[in-house]
């Protein structure tokens, strides 16, 4: 039988060249549970990223080298820290998502209840509308386990599954893992600091050593096996817990403060360096191409998923701030036209000036102003949402369920942001027109509605180009802003500050996008 995972000579260097992992040799057999222990900074989470998102890791500047890395990625499932349940779905939605993608689209409504029962949770939690935020830590972990089990993965990777659980729940979790591994004939890698969990589930114990950055097997020749399996006495369990803890504490005492050693300086080519510098710039373009390609497919194949994500994004980008956009655009429309009406000074008829301007200011200003406002408000909201999904490992959990985050998350979000912007731009233009109507009414300008909408609905020949420009700008802002928001929001979020950095970067990049297109198009229009 082929081992679910075989790693030999795995070496990982940090972007600054220091060696984080200098040798992992590991082979996991079918039905086996392996526990990886190690101190903070030993590289446990990085090892998980090597397995789940090696490409992203390398794009972030890590260097990953392995003599052998045999892994069926489609059989690898993940239970992230604290479960990383999808908070845009309810409890049932989390399970059904895994079931749907495991079965290629169809799932039985009763399956979710069955999987909850399987991990010892009450079926009531599967009631529609039960938010995942209502779950306790233990419940969330078990739902996460149920979700990954439902995805029918053959190799589970459980990342700190006992964080936040009391000792009793740790033991319950350990027993659950052992039961399911045996029942389903699957394997598991458990990364943990928790001695009780490690001893409870491990067939073999490994330590990611801070001393030499290699993987060492602990008690290789005398480990009795998982202590939560039947047949182990309480005294035996107590002895091994003490011994295991002592070994771990001794190791940390000796090596916890030891920084990763500096490895040989790897000369990166100038192309690689340029590519790294250009990566944040190119990412939105990549997102545009990917999302435009995947959105129709996702819409056809998983319309329910598409609708869930689109609905969430439209709520963030359109519905919630809509009144804000309407008020701001009306005030701007009023202010601009009022200022214009006063430009002539004494002796100049304001209504004559208003007639000259017509709706030209709306055509000229609405796309840019709406785009800048949109990216600051709506774009930041979606950016933060996507970023928080990364920060809370929800995107990693998607990957671990075999769900392509680009198809599931990016494509519908991208399309929803783009559509939202188009609607916002229209609302903004309408608001500016309404503001203008107030000014026109004050000066008694006849047929003000026709006057202000003429450039949109029936532009004069010399104004047609400006109307076309406005339409083009709205179009390119729509997908441009959407691409940048999704790219920045979807980028790796190792810490909370990365979320705010992404938001700021998105506002800056989108503003440059808007300004650049304003300039380019105005030059084209005037030169023609």
């Amino acid at each position, binding site marked *: 039988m082929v081992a679910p995972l075989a790693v030999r000579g795995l070496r990982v260097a940090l972007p600054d060249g220091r060696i984080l992992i200098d040798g992992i040799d590991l082979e996991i057999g079918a039905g086996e549970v392996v526990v990886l222990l190690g101190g903070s900074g030993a590289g446990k989470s990085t090892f998980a990223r090597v397995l789940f998102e090696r490409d992203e890791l390398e794009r972030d500047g890590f260097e990953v080298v392995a003599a052998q890395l045999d892994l069926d990625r489609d059989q690898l499932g993940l239970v992230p820290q604290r479960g990383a349940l999808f908070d845009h779905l309810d409890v049932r939605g989390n399970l059904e998502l895994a079931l749907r993608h495991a079965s290629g689209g169809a799932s039985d409504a009763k399956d979710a209840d069955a999987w909850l029962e399987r991990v010892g949770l009450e079926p009531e939690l599967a009631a529609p509308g039960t938010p995942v935020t209502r779950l306790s830590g233990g419940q969330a972990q078990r739902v996460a386990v149920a979700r990954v089990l439902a995805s029918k993965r053959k190799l589970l990777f459980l990342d700190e599954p006992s964080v936040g659980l009391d000792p009793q729940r740790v033991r319950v979790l350990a027993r659950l893992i052992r039961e399911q591994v045996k029942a389903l004939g699957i394997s598991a890698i458990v990364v943990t600091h928790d001695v009780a969990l490690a001893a409870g589930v491990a067939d073999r114990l490994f330590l990611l050593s801070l001393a030499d950055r290699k993987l060492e097997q602990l008690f290789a020749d005398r480990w009795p096996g998982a202590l939560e399996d039947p047949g182990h006495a309480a005294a035996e369990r107590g002895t091994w817990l003490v011994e295991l803890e002592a070994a771990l504490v001794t190791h940390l005492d000796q090596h916890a403060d030891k920084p990763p050693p500096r490895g040989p300086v790897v000369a990166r080519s100038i192309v690689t360096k340029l590519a790294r510098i250009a990566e944040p710039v*190119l990412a939105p373009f990549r997102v545009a191409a990917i999302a435009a390609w995947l959105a129709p497919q996702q819409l056809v194949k998983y319309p329910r998923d598409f609708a869930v994500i689109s609905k969430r994004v439209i709520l963030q980008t359109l519905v919630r701030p809509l009144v804000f956009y309407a008020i701001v655009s009306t005030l701007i429309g009023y202010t601009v036209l009022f200022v214009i009406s006063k430009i002539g000074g004494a002796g100049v008829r304001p209504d004559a000036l208003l007639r000259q301007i017509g709706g030209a200011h709306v055509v000229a200003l609405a796309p840019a102003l709406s785009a800048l406002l949109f990216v600051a408000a709506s774009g930041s909201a979606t950016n933060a949402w996507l970023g928080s999904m990364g920060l809370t490992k929800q995107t990693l959990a998607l990957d671990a369920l075999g769900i392509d985050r680009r198809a599931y998350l990016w494509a519908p979000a991208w399309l929803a942001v783009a559509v939202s912007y188009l609607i916002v731009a229209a609302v903004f233009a309408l608001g500016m027109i309404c503001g203008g109507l107030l000014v026109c009414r004050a000066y008694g300008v*006849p047929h003000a509605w026709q006057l202000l909408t003429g450039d949109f609905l*029936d532009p*004069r*020949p010399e104004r047609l180009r400006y109307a076309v420009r406005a339409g083009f700008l709205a179009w390119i802002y729509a997908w441009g802003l959407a691409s940048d928001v999704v790219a920045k929001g979807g980028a790796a979020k190792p810490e909370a500050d990365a979320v705010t950095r992404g938001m700021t970067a998105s506002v800056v990049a989108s503003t440059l996008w808007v300004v650049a297109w304003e300039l*380019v198009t105005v030059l*084209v229009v005037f030169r023609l």
Partner: protein
Amino acid sequence: MKAAGVIGVAIVAAHALGFVALASRSAGQDLEVELRAPLASPVLMLDGVVPAAIEPRVVETVDAPGPGLRRKRWRVDYRGGFTREVGATQLVGPFQDSKVPACSGRVIVGQALLDQIAVAMRGVISDQLRGETIFPVGAYHSIDAFTLEWARFETHPFDVALLGAAGAPHGYVRATARIAFDRVTVPIVLVAVPERADTELHFRVQASARVEVANGFLEWLNSKVDLTSKLATRLANHELDAMLVTALAPPPPFELAGGQTLAFTFCADPVEISDRAYGVLPFAVVIGNAPGGVLPPHLPSIHAPPAAPSSIAIDLDVDALNAMLYELWRTGWLDRQLAEVGLDRRFNTDPTVTEMLTVRLSPLRLALPPVISRAGDHLRLAADARVNLSDGGLTVARVYGALDLRFATNLAPAVTLGALELACERTPTTLVPCYADLVGALATRSADFDGALTTAFGALLREIFVDRELSVGELPFSLHVAGVVPTLGTGVHLELDAKLVK
């Protein structure tokens, strides 16, 4: 993933190129009229072709048929009250005949002026007779009465002998006098019948005198020496003829610059006299031929019987006005006047223009003679001009202006702008709308532009018809016109305040 990035960049590049292509195709179809019409035509024939893309929304309007400057307009309305319009002008016939000028003007001499002439003549004749002795009636003493009056044969049937076989079907001037000598008083009657010979008018004068004496010898003697003839000859010795011809003649030629004149001539219609009221002399404006066969239009006109003027009046039909304008246009006088007025200069140096506009004008050139027509209670002067617009490049523009005018005392024109339209020539036969907003703004500032042409024309009318002092042959009198009161009828009626002065 790398390919996706490249594709993304390619999508952006494609959008940039796509926008350039899109923008270049988004110029919109502006109104454009390909004209297929001559400048002047006997009948209205203003055909134009518009682009098929906008043809359904083009609204065509055309002036009612008839002679004059006629316009056809092509208009497209856009939402918001914006309009794009192009108009073209055609001078439509029938036209006046340069070989047979129409009787479009009338000099009307009232009885009052004849009365003045009578007073003057009485003095002249008295001076001539003073100191004379005629055998057998004795020495001249005085002229007791002298009258001149417009007369019709119907009211003076006894004048038949004097009028002779030719008679006076259109009336005549009747003079009566009583000349006192030492021994007798001689009553005299003269008739002066206007007769026109080609280009001049003269009066055929016949007189009769009857010696009122009771002495049979003297009566016999008178028959032998033909006293009547002697007196009649004296009285009819050109003075009366000169006086009448001066008063009743077309206006003299007006000197334009460059040796050109604006001339008036007799025309086919006869002098018409109304008993004790007025005498009317029809006259015509002499017109030459312009290149391209352009002639002034001949507008229908109804001659109402003139009101008896206090002294002298001149009626000018619109044909007369148009013939005069035509001559002034043909000789370049109007263009010179426009240049002197300096509309272009005034526009180009206007502070608002210099500060805010890029467009500049060249002097205007009238492409067609201006035409006056009757419009309600006023006259409308329409003109079609060309002007070069300088705004980065040079564009020829067609300016159509219509002025609604009335004349106040002394021919000071009161003018309002009836229309001001502008179209640019993309080619000499292709018209496009241009500077529509600018034209609209200029129309609201019409005071700057309204008066130029009409003020010049009004001043010219004054110079021709008013500011004149006409000498009367060798007599020590002249006809002095002190003022004029114009009124509008079918044309312009100029009531002159004329006096015979010594």
